[in-house]
């Protein structure tokens, strides 16, 4: 026969079990030393816990609550209706601003850095600097093909051929 679960014994001690289940536990506990011992321990713990009593409330709580409610009502009445409406609008505006701000930050964090050499600012500047750093001047001394002169002097190939 399976032993009674701890949670069932707790329910038994607390008087939560329906009559049929209670009778079943009674029957089992009578025959099983292990479960009888556990049931006794839980019962004793339950009893000892009952030794802690708290002091009853001394002040008149109903009166205190009534005063607090009246104060809340007076505070609400002192606030003009227009102000109440304005505070709602202000709260809504603040919420929208926060949402826009968060969206902006999220976009900044998640968007990739511009990498297109034509439209991207950072890379374009970098490429421009690199291009400027190329020593094209050395080609002015005359290259093997003659193309450097064409590029540097902006001369049409046909012009050059005609003049030669």
């Amino acid at each position, binding site marked *: 026969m399976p032993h009674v679960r*701890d*949670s069932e014994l*707790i*329910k038994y001690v*607390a008087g*939560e079990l329906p009559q049929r289940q209670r009778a079943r536990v009674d029957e089992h506990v009578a025959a099983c030393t292990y479960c009888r011992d556990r049931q006794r*321990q*839980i019962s*004793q*713990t*339950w009893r*000892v*816990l*009952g*030794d*802690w*009593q*708290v*002091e*009853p*409330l001394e*002040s008149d*709580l*109903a009166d*205190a*609550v*009534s005063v*607090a*409610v009246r104060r*809340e009502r007076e505070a609400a009445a002192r606030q003009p209706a227009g102000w109440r409406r304005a505070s709602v609008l202000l709260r809504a505006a603040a919420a929208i601003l926060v949402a826009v701000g968060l969206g902006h930050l999220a976009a900044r964090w998640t968007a990739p850095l511009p990498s297109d050499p034509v439209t991207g600012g950072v890379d374009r500047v970098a490429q421009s600097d690199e291009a400027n750093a190329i020593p094209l001047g050395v080609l002015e001394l005359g290259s093997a093909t003659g193309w450097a002169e064409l590029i540097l002097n902006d001369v049409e190939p046909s012009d050059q051929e005609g003049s030669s």
Partner: protein
Amino acid sequence: MSADAGDDAGLMRAVAEGDMAALGELVRRHEEKAFALACRLLARTDAAEDVTQEAFLHVHRAARRYRPEARFTTWLYRIVVNLCLDAKRRNKRAPARLPVYRPPAEAPPQHDQLEAAERAERVRQAVDHLPGRQRTAVVLHRYMQLSHRDVAEVTGWSVSAVESCLVRAYAQLRQELRDLVEK
């Protein structure tokens, strides 16, 4: 729903219509248990009094939205438990002892009374040493006399979670109060 619970729902309807006498009646009916619950969860009388008052203010503010789907006490205890959790978080740095209840006595305390007070203090400490969820479950189950299902309704946990909390809590209490349990 019991007659009392039905009366509570009627009182709540009256409170929703602005009847302050109905609110007073609700407070008088339930203040003792609500206060005892707060006392045991907070282990501070002053804070427990504030929490109990705040709980009834919540009841007043929410009266129009209240639907009597569960017992009024279930709803009230849930408010008290949540307010206690908030208060505990706020007052984590300033724990204070809850004075142990001693029945009024004209004569000097007898040996039995002193012993009872000591036992009560031991139990209070043992319950206070339980982890938060276990303490909430034990206070609701042992001291508020709620069933496992009712504890689950008040806390919003599953019934199996409540059962597991209670099994562990009673085991720890049995261990910590072993000398008293085995007397």
